């Protein structure tokens, strides 16, 4: 048997590709920090069957071509054992063939696209409930609660936004409704007046937001100004502390689905607060959900690698993963399980709402 790439007597090499210079540089950096935090924790406190972790970070600038180059570098040059937490849908799609050619697992990429586990591939593992599922499951519940009659959507004109929009359509079907109005915008747009005008003209009373941060604020802000006040429901992409920090009062009342909780440093829960402050001390900035993602991904990897035993190889790792169960953690993620045919940990999310400038969990995990 050939020597397993990326695993030596005392080291496991983990690669990740983040956006450190492009439009998502903020998230990329936070995810990297989260990963680094867990890697350092492990290296300080122990090891995995005698092996320390080494994290290799490459910058894709959110550009698929650079992602391929980065993947080639990590796979062929740095000889990584696993690719973990790679950010971006198109970037993952472009990089995966490079990895798969060398039998390297694409472990829990930071994107909630279905392609991260579908079609089934032995090297794919995904952890995030997809935007599609989030909205599909949450929307009927919201409609029932609010007694909504006309549901509209505004979504970013890319794969992410489309997933939200498709989720909304699927969710509406179960409630026996149809989309009353469908509007979109291009990534980076700053003006949402005509989209809001269209939804207002359609008399919508519930708007599904396929938006991220600035677009969420822009849309909701524009709506509030023009006196259009439906219920707003966003996906986990809109679940960040920036929404209320930037948008201020106008953002109060909007809902979003989420899988992990925002780690406020003055959080009620003690371990989470401790963690958040540790992060802040190390990186001199507040942690966000992306820091959590990064942390959790490495944490999951460690657990699986421990289980895989001293003979760590791609095959033994897959074998270990395919019988893994991760219990709910302090960040509020649901219990997730993996098998040889189920490569998405769980598809559930909770609803949160902004109340007095802070995200508050308002429902339990929504189950179909």
């Amino acid at each position: 048997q050939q020597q397993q790439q990326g695993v030596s007597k005392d080291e496991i090499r983990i690669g990740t590709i983040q956006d450190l210079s492009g439009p998502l540089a903020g998230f990329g950096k936070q995810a990297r920090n989260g990963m680094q935090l867990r890697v350092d924790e492990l290296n300080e406190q122990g090891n995995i069957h005698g092996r320390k972790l080494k994290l290799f970070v490459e910058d894709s600038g959110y550009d698929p071509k650079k992602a391929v180059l980065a993947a080639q570098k990590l796979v062929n040059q740095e000889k990584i054992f696993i690719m973990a937490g790679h950010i971006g849908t198109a970037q993952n799609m472009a990089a995966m063939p490079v990895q798969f050619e060398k039998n390297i697992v694409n472990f829990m990429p930071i994107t909630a696209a279905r392609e991260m586990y579908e079609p089934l591939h032995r090297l794919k593992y995904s952890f995030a409930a997809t935007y599609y599922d989030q909205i599909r499951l949450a929307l009927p519940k919201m409609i029932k609660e609010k007694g909504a009659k006309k549901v509209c959507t505004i979504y970013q004109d890319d794969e992410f936004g489309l997933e939200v929009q498709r989720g909304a359509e699927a969710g509406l079907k179960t409630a026996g409704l149809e989309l009353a109005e469908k509007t979109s915008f291009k990534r980076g747009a700053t003006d949402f007046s005509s989209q809001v005008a269209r939804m207002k003209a359609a008399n919508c009373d519930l708007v599904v937001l396929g938006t991220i941060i600035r677009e969420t604020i822009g849309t909701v802000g524009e709506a509030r100004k023009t006196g259009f006040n439906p219920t707003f429901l966003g996906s986990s992409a809109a679940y960040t502390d920036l929404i209320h920090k930037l948008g201020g009062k106008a953002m109060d009342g909007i809902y979003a689905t989420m899988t992990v909780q925002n780690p406020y440093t003055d959080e009620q829960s003690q371990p989470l607060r401790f963690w958040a402050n540790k992060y802040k001390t190390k990186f001199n900035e507040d942690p966000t959900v992306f820091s959590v993602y990064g942390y959790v991904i490495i944490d999951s990897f460690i657990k699986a690698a421990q289980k895989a035993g001293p003979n760590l190889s791609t095959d033994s790792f897959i074998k270990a993963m395919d019988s893994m169960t991760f219990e709910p953690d302090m960040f509020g993620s649901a219990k997730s399980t993996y098998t040889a045919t189920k490569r998405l940990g769980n598809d559930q999310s909770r609803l949160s709402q902004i109340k007095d400038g802070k995200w508050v969990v308002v429902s339990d995990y929504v189950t179909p």
Partner: protein
Amino acid sequence: MRFIFKTSYDQDIRLARHGGHVFWYGLLVAFLIVAPWAIDEYWLAQLTFVLIYGIVGLGLMLLAGFTGQFSIGHAAFLGAGAYTQGVLTNMGVPFPIALLAAAALSAAVGVVVALPALRVKGIYLGIATLSFGFIVEEVFARWESVTGGNAGLHVKSPQLFGWSLGSGSGFYFLCLVVAVLSTLGILNLLRSPTGRAFVAIRDSEISAQSMGIHLARYKTMSFAISAALAGLGGALYAHKLSFISPDQFNILQSIDLLLMVVIGGLGSVHGAFLGAIFLIAMPQLISMGKDWLPAVIGQAPGLQGLVYGVVLIAFVLFEPLGLYGRWLKIRTWLQLFPFYRKGLFKRQKSFTKSDRLR
């Protein structure tokens, strides 16, 4: 210094001007042929990218460097080629036919772009091509039934006579052959009336016209050839990445392409390939350099953009003729050694005149 005494017209027309050329280019080709055995897989992949971008650069060089028409939307042609190739290969069309179709369709798109471009120059042309680039990107994203929309498109690996060219070295040779053939074609064109007509248009439209050059036809032709090469490159790119999505062909890609030819050296065929080497090597160098820097800087997001910008600025400031210009100086220095005089390449003051009147 080498003096060449010309004794026949043939000597003037030949591609290789003297024995030295034959020797050095021979060496280069020999290296490129043995490369798959000589260098490891990672570097071979990089070399393949260099060839692909070199082909695209060749086209843009023809347009910008030789015809004087700057395109800030060249990624659209790249995309047209890539999508044509992707869609056709996935439909099972044989590889060579798909490749030709990609080039042809891109050329057709080039002709369409040329229509509004014929009447405008300078910045107006730049913005026209930029606009076109945006529209084409939007088409890729919206025409979901064919392009797969924003979800992107997976491209099957190429098959030639039952061989799979998907592997590293097979595909490398494919790119090498296409690159060499396109280069020869462009060089031939440039030493023929068509190439001279392009240069004439670049230098003075009014006298080109008075020499009987049909401006519209030659500009269109230049756009078409340039687009065709971009399409060829795009087709190979699609296979190399095996996944294409609309945002790979956005404005940033277009600017990268433009930077490539400028840094390579406008107005030289060498420049296209030197620029491609630069474009591919640069991120690698930056990420290598990262590890040497203190973490606050080395690990900071945005470093790549910063270095990229600084290098670009440095190039414009210190080597406006690009990598090829630098090479020429080094070569002259070597040839003149030890008689090189300091002032030889001192830049004289120079002055700009309005480009609006041309």
